């Protein structure tokens, strides 16, 4: 995936401004940054859910090249979950998974098989509960969204803050789930998170965003990646000011 001169401005605020950035096939890319850094904006632009002021996102496969704002074909091999705006909340999770399966032409048996695979992650609180998605807890809604994004076995998976609302066990299960999925399918995964530990654990690359700019692009091979990122976030906290005010 290539991002070229991608810029998004809301009023006077530059939410995202990236000259050039490439995500390679099979990368597990983590986006980290403080609130307002532009992580969600970047995902929305990639998914063509926002209009960029300039630039475009190009996805290349072995056979074709897609500019995301010009065609919809790339949606067939993409899975994403950003927030509850992705969920049809008056369905039960079972109905929703069945709906996703059918609109993606996935046989019912395959859907059932996949759901069995995610059973641990759902920890018995999602399927078969006969509850509407809107009546589930935020954590379980998050699980529904993540599983739905995975159902069509996408070769590009985009998850915004996937660890949010999840209990510690589910966060760890989520981590393994993404690692396994990447290993088994070779899919490209993009995740954003405020949870540095999990992000650094699973990602092969980490992009650090600040005020809409990618200020650093780390590879897992960089030995000082963790230390540098931690130092960056430490540097943003002004201990003295906080203690004085307190």
């Amino acid at each position: 995936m290539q991002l070229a001169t991608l810029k998004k401005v809301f009023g006077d605020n530059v939410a995202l401004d990236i000259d050039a950035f490439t995500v390679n096939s099979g990368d597990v890319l983590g986006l980290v940054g403080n609130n307002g850094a532009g992580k969600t904006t970047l995902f929305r632009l990639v998914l063509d859910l926002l209009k960029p002021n300039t630039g475009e996102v190009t996805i290349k496969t072995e056979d074709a090249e897609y500019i995301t704002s010009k065609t919809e074909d790339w949606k067939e091999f993409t899975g994403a979950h950003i927030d509850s705006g992705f969920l049809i909340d008056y369905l039960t999770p079972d109905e929703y998974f069945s709906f996703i399966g059918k609109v993606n032409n996935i046989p019912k048996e395959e859907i059932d098989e996949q759901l069995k695979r995610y059973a641990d992650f759902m920890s018995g609180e999602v399927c078969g509960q006969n509850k509407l998605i809107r009546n589930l807890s935020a954590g379980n809604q998050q699980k529904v969204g993540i599983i739905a994004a995975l159902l069509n076995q996408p070769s590009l998976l985009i998850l915004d803050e996937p660890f949010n609302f999840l209990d510690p066990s589910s966060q760890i299960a989520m981590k393994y789930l993404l690692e396994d999925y990447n290993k088994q399918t070779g899919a490209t995964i993009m995740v954003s998170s405020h949870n540095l530990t999990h992000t650094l654990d699973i990602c092969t690359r980490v992009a650090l965003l600040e005020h809409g700019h990618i200020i650093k692009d780390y590879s897992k091979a960089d030995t000082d990646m963790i230390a540098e990122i931690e130092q960056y976030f430490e540097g943003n906290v002004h201990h003295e000011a906080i203690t004085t005010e307190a």
Partner: protein
Amino acid sequence: MDFKHFRLLYKLISKNKKLSEKRHPMFERNRFMKIFTYCMVAFMACYFIFFGVVLGNAFLDGSIEACDMLNQGIVFLLIFDFWIRFGMQETPAQEVKPYKLMPIPTNAIVHIFLIKRGWNWYNVFFLFFFIPFGFITVAQMPYFGWMCFIGYMVGVWLLFVLNAYWYLIWRTLINQHIIYILVPIIFYAALIGLGMVATDWLFTGSMLFMRGFIDWNPLCFLAVLLCILVLYYVNLWLQKKFLYEEIAKTEKVKKVKSQEMSFLNRYGVIGEYLKLEIKSIARNNVVRKIFLSGLIITLIFCSITAFTPAYDGGFMHVFICVYCFAVYGIMTLTNIMGVEGNYIDGLMSRKESVLSLLKAKYYFYIAMLLIPTLSMIAPVSTGKYTIYELLGCLFFTPGCIFPCLFILAIFNNTTMNLTQKIQQKTTNSKAQFFVSMAAMFVPMGLMYVLVMLLGSMWGGLVMTALGLIGVVLHHVWMKAIYKQFMIRRYENMSSFRATRNA
């Protein structure tokens, strides 16, 4: 808390309340809606003034004093006011929530919200009717004069304040359990029933009491003030009693049975979206209400047409025929995409899902035409309508009216709150307003002209032909709508997100 702080708090809370109304996302994003609302309020005020003038003059010729004539029925106005408040006002217990954690005595906040309930513009709105009425029937009368007029207005205002507190008691109790709604229903039914049996008791009593205001009888004012005070303290007790229950209130989660609807599986992806449409109606309060009211209105009009001699000739004849077929579509499709705004990102991240959704909706609404078709068999068999007129409407609706309404899918960008119980903020936009008007009146005019010029047979057949063209070409116009929708997608998605949960 001393009076100075109480007054400061009152001002702050009033300011917050004004801002919350002024900055409601629905209004902020829809200037037309804002202007439309103001116009509607102004229209209602003019309407009240008009009625005040008309009734004032009309009653002058009566056998009793004009103001007495109206005052006999004041109880009906108060009952009317009581019921329309349900669509507009929350309970203070609901409003107190954001202030609960602040270092302010809860008692003071509840008092402020209760005082605001009495000191509210809404309680003076009926004066738009009473001022012109009172001016004609009281102020201008030599034996009454201006002081009597002022007394009358103050009395009327106090009665509406009393009604506000009376309403609040029942609104609070109904919030606890819906069964309490039976109490005001039974109370008012009994009151009107008794009034009918012994007219002196209710109507003359009302008249004499209101005359007390005109005559500045201190006992009348004292009686109302005392009632207001009693109801105020009953409310205070109730609000404090239910405050914590209201704050901690959680909806009971109902278990639902997964519905397979396997008969729709044969239609593939479209079948899945059809299931979605049906489940949306079954499981969302707001959508269900619109569906049921559309259905009831259709059935009422069909029954009137079938079993009564009303609307037998002229334009009304055409109006009813078109209305029976088109009303359901107009009521529901004007808000097309409003439900889908809740999960627009999910739809837009899947290829052409909105196109499939629009097609499924179209087939669903065609299936719904079965209801008016069956209902219209009776008037056709009795000769009120010809079979050609019936066919004309049956095909013209999906072929020409529905495409016009589906165009709104391009422009509608306000998300509908699916779980709201009391009132949905109206989401009409300029496009919705004009398209629904056009969808209603253009076919009526067309059918009227065609039937006049060509007779009912050829008129009906021309409409059938026009409709058939639209139905046959539905894939073409649907794709054109989808193309335009995609051109406006960014603007719409942004607005859908902004109005979600508004």
